[in-house]
């Protein structure tokens, strides 16, 4: 009887900590997003946000997340297919490849802001070496997005690749051999063997990275400031500059809703397959 409760006793500090520092503040943010100094349970914060460009922030966040995930998964598939093979210098390459995982986002932001600087930038200096004209890396919405996506992918592709690699290691080489004997080329083997067997790992990487992409914060703040606006930078802007902190609660709640909806979607899709 008593033995049964002992594991819970061990878990208690963690559960209490998580309840107090994570669940309670989250609930309180959602609750306060429906409050104003003068009224309770109203939508006026959300209406205000719509006026200040909430739809734009949502679209930008979704677009950036989708683009960054596409880049990261594409590169990660290539790199993990390399890492699954044996070759000379593999350990050196692996060590090198995971370095960005440890580099702070602000440092990545620092380097890329100097690489993509419009005047005196390293990317433009490279272009010049190849005889190409300099580019304004922030000339349009699309360029802004691309610049942020590339910078973000530099830091975050390693973790995707490591997770995919773990999945690939779990696939028996026999299956590949059999498929190759049956005449399936590399592309068909990738589509018919690698992808289906990796589903669980892809879902995990997608949730981990997708959630972080929605939360992308320091990088856009350093590279483009508050425009184009994202849900996180919008939340922070309202928190740090306006008199009404309630707007930031509303923006935060929208962000939370998207993160939870996305995770549920991925988990559901994984279950349905």
């Amino acid at each position, binding site marked *: 009887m008593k033995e049964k409760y002992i594991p819970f006793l061990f878990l208690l500090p963690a559960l209490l900590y998580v309840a107090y520092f994570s669940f309670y503040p989250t609930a309180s943010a959602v609750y306060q997003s429906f409050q104003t100094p003068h009224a309770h349970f109203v939508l006026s914060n959300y209406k205000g946000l719509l006026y200040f460009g909430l739809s734009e922030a949502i679209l930008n966040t979704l677009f950036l997340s989708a683009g960054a995930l596409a880049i990261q998964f594409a590169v990660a598939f290539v790199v993990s297919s390399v890492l699954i093979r044996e070759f000379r210098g593999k350990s050196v390459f692996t060590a090198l490849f995971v370095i960005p995982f440890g*580099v702070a986002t602000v440092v990545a*932001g*620092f*380097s890329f802001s100097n690489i993509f600087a419009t005047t005196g930038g390293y990317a433009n200096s490279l272009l010049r070496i190849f005889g190409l004209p300099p580019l304004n890396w922030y000339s349009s919405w699309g360029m802004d997005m691309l610049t942020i996506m590339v910078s973000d992918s530099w830091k975050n592709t390693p973790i995707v690749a490591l997770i995919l690699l773990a999945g690939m290691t779990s696939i028996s080489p026999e299956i590949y051999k059999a498929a190759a004997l049956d005449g399936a080329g590399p592309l068909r083997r990738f589509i018919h063997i690698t992808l289906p067997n990796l589903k669980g790992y892809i879902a995990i990487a997608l949730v981990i990275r997708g959630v972080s992409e929605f939360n992308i914060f320091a990088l856009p703040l350093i590279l483009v400031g508050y425009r184009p606006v994202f849900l996180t930078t919008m939340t922070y802007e309202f928190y740090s500059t306006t008199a009404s902190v309630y707007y930031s609660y509303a923006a935060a709640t929208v962000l939370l809703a998207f993160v939870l909806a996305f995770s549920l979607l991925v988990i559901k899709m994984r279950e349905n397959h």
Partner: protein
Amino acid sequence: MNNSKLSRTGLYIVIFLVSLAVIYPLYVLFLIAFSPVRYTLDARYPLQYPGGLTLTNLLTAFKGFNLVGPALRSIETAFLVGAIALVIGIPAAYGLSKLPRRQANTITTLLFLVNMLPAIVIAIPISAQFISAHLYNTVPGLALAQELVVLPLSVFLLLGAFDSIPRDLEYQARVDGAGLLRTVYLILVPLAKAGVVSTFLLAWMMSWDEFTFAVILSPINPTLPIVIYENITRGNILASSAFALILTLPVVVMTMLLQRYLKGEFLAGGLNG
């Protein structure tokens, strides 16, 4: 044979290009920190190789800016986050390893949910709580908040480490008359040493790099990432490069040390359930 030689060449081309992409942003950081400004920041087209090497940039930055305060604060916070990860994480992981599978899965899901709740959603309500609890702008306060980022992963890592210890060893200890706490801390923890150390280092590293909680909860007593961000936005590029260097060196070393544990299986740990 010819075919495999060709794919070997392709393999090394991919490895070369990926390595270049990984190194380049760090190389830019190195150039800005160590070459004379006339080749880097003051040049319209900065040199792609060091035009000369100098320590002037760093010395000016260290003289003009208070590095010691933020660096010490970052170190203290990181050690505290690592320590709390073990203090709360070890019993939690042990508890989980003792629970029936279904209950363990429920709690794992709960911890996973913690990782999905956006930091900015939590940080804003917490800042109000912290002000009244005198934890705002303090190291312990920041560490308690950053622990949220780290704890779920720590518990999974430790759980993996405990699970790999043969059950018999534990029963043997109990039969020999060791109490439960003694068994956990004097027998299991030493056996799971590698997992415990890597958990601590990973927690340390994640705190060292953390931005969102730090910028919202400790703006007046900033940690290194915040100082870098502030200096970038103020246009003090040389100072930021010096700070970025300090921030990056320890994590690059630690990423190398931790490489054995930076595996997809661990990073995705627990989410397989």
